[in-house]
């Protein structure tokens, strides 16, 4: 499937990010952060677009090819047909995300190891200098290297990265389900795609806007509150899947997630 070409682009992107960032910053922690930012950005974009565009075309394509009539003429319940289509789409996402996660972890691990070994060498030299220099038993370089080493270890591959990947995948699953649902009654594929993107953006933006309103000094009137609740009932809160920003910054995932 052509979609897997994206994985090649993804690998090229991480590699490019790794090489490019070395020209911008000498800070090892920032180098790993940029790698993660770019990879998660590519992963999110891929999953979101794929979940919407690929799922939106599943049923229209079956109708166009007349495969749908052949399938439904047999004793296959509609639910099973839809569920099978949905699982097929999600499987592609699952496989792609797994490959991307393996690639990201491998690149991260290799870069982290290279940076840590550079840092170890630097620390040995700094320790020797501190020992030889009169009046100095610690030095700034040593302090910085110690802090850097601990943040470098925190920025490498970890379980929390996996949590971010799971969140991105779950978001794609919800989005795929919504798109498939819309495509069952939509008159065109374009309509399905547009509706799915609108649901996605409303689901992302609505919680932030509501928070902002609630914290404003004017507060929210009773009617607005009702309206907000109605929107909340219809549109899923996609912010709940937004873990990447926090995880890249090194936050610890709450136990309830």
């Amino acid at each position, binding site marked *: 499937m052509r979609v897997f070409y994206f994985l090649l682009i993804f690998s090229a992107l991480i590699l490019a990010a790794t090489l490019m960032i070395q020209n911008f910053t000498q800070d090892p922690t920032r180098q790993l952060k940029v790698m993660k930012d770019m990879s998660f950005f590519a992963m999110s974009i891929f999953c979101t677009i794929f979940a919407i565009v690929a799922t939106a075309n599943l049923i229209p394509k079956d109708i166009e090819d007349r495969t749908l009539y052949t399938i439904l003429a047999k004793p296959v319940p509609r639910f099973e047909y839809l569920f099978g289509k949905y699982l097929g789409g999600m499987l592609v996402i699952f496989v792609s995300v797994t490959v991307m996660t393996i690639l990201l972890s491998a690149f991260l691990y290799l870069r982290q190891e290279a940076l840590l070994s550079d840092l170890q060498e630097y620390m040995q030299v700094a320790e020797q200098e501190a020992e030889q220099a009169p*009046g100095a038993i610690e030095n700034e370089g040593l*302090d910085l290297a110690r802090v850097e080493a601990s943040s470098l270890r925190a920025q490498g591959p970890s379980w929390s990265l996996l949590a971010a990947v799971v969140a991105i995948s779950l978001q794609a699953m919800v989005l795929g389900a919504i798109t498939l649902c819309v495509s069952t009654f939509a008159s065109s594929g374009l309509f399905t795609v547009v509706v799915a993107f609108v649901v996605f953006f409303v689901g992302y933006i609505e919680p932030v806007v509501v928070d902002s309103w609630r914290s404003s000094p004017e507060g929210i009137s009773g009617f607005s509150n009702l309206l907000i609740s109605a929107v909340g009932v219809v549109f899923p809160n996609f912010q709940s899947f*937004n873990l990447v*920003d926090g995880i890249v910054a090194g*936050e610890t995932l*709450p136990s309830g997630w």
Partner: protein
Amino acid sequence: MTSKRWLAVLLLIVFGAVRMPFEQRIEAGLKAAHFREGVTVPDDSMREQLGQLGAAAALGGFRSFLATMFELQATTAYANKDYEKVSKHYLLATQLHPREAGYWEMAGWMMGFNAVAYYLGEETEGKYSTAMRVNLARKSVDEALRFLENGLRYVPNDYGINRNLGNLLVRKKGDFCGAAEAFGRAADSMDGPSLAQRHHVYNLAYCPGQEEEAYSKLKALGKFFKGGPNPLPDERIPPAFLFHIRYFEKLFDIPAEDRFKSLLDLGALYEKLRRNFEVGQQYEKRHVLNMQRLEDVLDIPKSNRIPFGKKSLRPLQGGAN
């Protein structure tokens, strides 16, 4: 509408009503764990800078990525020595991702040291008047302070932010008390002894009203130097530590047997340092104070002391002290 469609709408509402409390619980958990810091509706000025697409991306879960892009732009602006843009891009990066300590730390360093060196250096000579250059440098320092102090609101225990704040306060503001506090926090964020700990004590030694605390911390530092299985030989005792502790021993009239034991010759150190000091040159306030303290400790007569005046201080050295 047919009854099936009504059923679909009803199902959507029921499912939504069941789903909402779960989502609210997740949101509350994520907020408590700082996952939502910086997730706000962008204000007019931020929207203008981000553009409509950028604002949508910021709300759509790509804040970290956008912040990285702005940091890269800030780095490019730094290479072009356009510090106005450096500040603008770091402002956006920090607003988008306020829990990422590195942005605050770098913004503080860029504006507090690199921009100041540029404005007061040879490159701007002739381009702006001296008063304007000093004014621009002062504004940069204030901006750097704002970055670092705002950063501490989000990541109060970060080593890098506190270290940069300490350096900025002592080197560009002459504020020893503020610097001592910042270095203290930096030292607390590290395991074991650190240079930040020493900076904390040395700055505290110049903080009015903190003399007793400074002396007690110097004594603890002395125990660290001389105690343990591998006590340091005299030649490796930091001279700054020695003249500070000698100053307080004199100030508090500590009996000879209770004083810190060291054969290090502070007189020789003074002579060596004095040879490097030139009348008419400008120095940082901490260096001037160090020399004066050394002169106090060595009882150098007033007539033989280095004649420091107001003009001996570099620009931006007038602080809280």
